């Protein structure tokens, strides 16, 4: 306040607070974690409880390639941001594009798996408890991947228009937290669906 007495000492140490973007993103991630936890709990509870229809072991193929793609994209986005912080815009654009592509490959892979499950194995969301919980959980994750891809694509477009530079590194770092979260969720989903649940 301008009316504070001049005798009050100014704080000696600089007044630093966590960045609001980071806090906001962590808060969002906390909330999303809770949503995924509920879906995972439902999935785990219903393991083995389907009254009929195909069982996971009979129809699920472990998506190793897809998983490698998605988890690598965490690495490439990290490299992209390191490049951006260091001012190497071309490298940033390349790594960002690779991240985007890996994410897209993952999504396409999921789509292909679903196509196979629906048309060949006859597993839909209404088939049985496994179908309901599987498509919901994997679908919720895929939805979050899609949202991330939209973000990645938007930045890609701006980057190609030469509008992204070093000063945006902090903001994109916050965005990358979301992408890392999406990858971490996939680790959990992968373990629950393809390892524990089979």
């Amino acid at each position, binding site marked *: *306040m*301008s*009316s*504070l*007495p001049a005798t*009050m000492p*100014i*704080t000696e140490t600089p*007044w630093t*607070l*966590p*960045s*609001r973007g980071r*806090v*906001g993103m962590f*808060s*969002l991630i*906390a*909330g*999303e974690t*809770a*949503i995924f*936890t*509920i*879906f995972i709990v*439902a999935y785990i*509870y*219903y393991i083995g*409880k*389907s*009254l009929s229809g195909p069982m996971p072991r009979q129809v699920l193929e472990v998506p190793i390639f897809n998983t490698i793609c998605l988890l690598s994209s965490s690495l490439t986005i990290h490299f992209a941001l390191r490049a951006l912080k260091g001012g190497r815009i071309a490298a940033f654009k390349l790594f960002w594009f690779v991240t985007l592509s890996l994410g897209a490959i993952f999504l396409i892979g999921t789509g292909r798996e679903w196509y196979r499950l629906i048309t060949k194995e006859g597993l839909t*969301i*209404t088939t*049985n*408890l496994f179908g*309901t*919980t599987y498509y*919901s959980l994997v679908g*919720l994750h895929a939805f979050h991947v899609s949202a991330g891809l939209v973000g990645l694509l938007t930045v890609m477009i701006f980057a190609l228009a030469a509008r992204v530079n070093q000063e945006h590194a902090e903001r994109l770092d916050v965005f990358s937290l979301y992408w890392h979260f999406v990858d971490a969720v996939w680790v959990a989903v992968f373990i629950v669906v393809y390892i524990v649940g089979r």
Partner: protein
Amino acid sequence: MGMTAMSSNSIPISETVSQVAERKPLSEILHEWVITVDHKRLGLMYIGLALLFLALGGLEAAIMRIQLAVPHAHFVSPQVFNRMFTMHGTTMIFFVAMTILFGFGIYLVPLMIGTRDMAFPRLNAWGFWMSAFGGLLLYFSFIGGEGLSGAGTAPDVGWWAYAPLTSPAFSKGHSTDYWTISLLVAGFGTLATAVNFVATILSMRCPGMTLGKMPLLCWMYLVTGGLLLFTITPLTAAQLMLMIDRYLGGHFFDTQAGGSAVMWMHFFWIFGHPEVYVLILPSFAFVSEIVPVFSRKPIFGYPIMVAATVAIGFISMSVWAHHMFTVGMASYSNAFFVLTSMAIAVPTGIKIFNWLGTMWGGQIRYATPMLFCLGFLFQFLIAGLTGVMLGAAPFNWQLSGSYFVIAHFHYVIVGGILFAVFGAFYYWFPKMTGRMLNETLGKWHFGFFFIGFHLTFDFMHGAGILGMPRRIYTYEPNRGWETWNMIVTVGVLFQAVAVLCFAFNLFWSYFRGRATGNDPWDAWTLEWSTSSPPPAYNFAAIPEVKSRRPLWDLKHPEDPDWRYE
């Protein structure tokens, strides 16, 4: 007093909002309010939204009480009654309590931490409009679908929407979908607000205001925000699952396909119980600001109050199944939830003692805000104790699902939260408008409401003890419930009169209330250092603080707080 010197901090805006309004065309004013991202305006909009829904929810309650005043009444049909209790509960929790508490928080937190706005002003606006549209969608259910003259499709599954009553088999048409989707929409708004509270409080405090120096209100909203992140999201998840069941043929809660009705209950109450703490913590916040000012002492035991708040936040996430003691969980599960539910009484009780300690040895002034806080303390004490009764699982097997439980939670929500909210109105209305609410009307408001509240909710315990279950549109005359129900209904009249007093007070005082300056109550937190109402930018210069009561330090330079903290 050094107070007048403080007004130099803000540009003298002597005009009140109403004077400014006269100068601009109405369309421009509306446009300003619709596109605003100013936390003060959004706070007022939340509060206005809440008051609108309070009237609707109150009407629903009145209809139920008229129907239940005598046995075998025919005031409304069972179908209408079932919609009434569903809509009453849903409205009051999501569109009255949450919105009004958010409104006060959004208004006050930036002012109290010495900053210009919330961390994410546009997200703030988005959150408000999502809540508003959610409420609108819920009420559209009365006229949507089959229309006004038809059966109507307002939801009638109770505000917990237990499965499998909500499955397509038992809930035909779209009434349940209105419940699900309106809350889903509002829930996203709530999540946005939660993120905003956490980010604002952690990232935007003025220099010198460490976490240990911010007003207790800010602590309460920080914990509330954090709790919301983990609370509203399970409901979102459960509602997504319900929608998958209803629209995509899923089987999450489809008992015919092996699904579990109990799982809905778990997910709902994992949301539902922390939700009530989301509602009570801001009420604690108001009491924690008002009682010290009117007792003329600092809050007793600030660090313990913080610790208790955080403890409540954590423990509240472990008690949920005390709403499910009758569903047949194993005995050790029931015992666990008895333990956690009783445990949460400890930090809650500590708070009551600390408020008592604040009053002790003080110089208490009984202006209307303090009267409402006194009512809060008395009623919250009782509510907490009936909560302990309900926490003893075997006792719960008799009391749950009965009017005893309804009495208990209305004691918390009306006797606790609403009293605290009324207190907050009287306390901060001068800051928001530059005018005092009328004291005499305020005391009539308090008196009538106190009497009406106790007539209704004290005697409601009796009906429950005599075995009257909840959610029934009528009852048998031979069970001894008639007198109790009649008295309960009579209390509604007093409450209605009180609320009319209050509404009149709000309108009258906005135009004709006694004008006031920055600090009518001689208070100590930063919001009282700006003008009333504050300018759009809150503070001309971002303040710097050294203690929990910066204005006390200014008013008492010979004995500042920072020497003792």
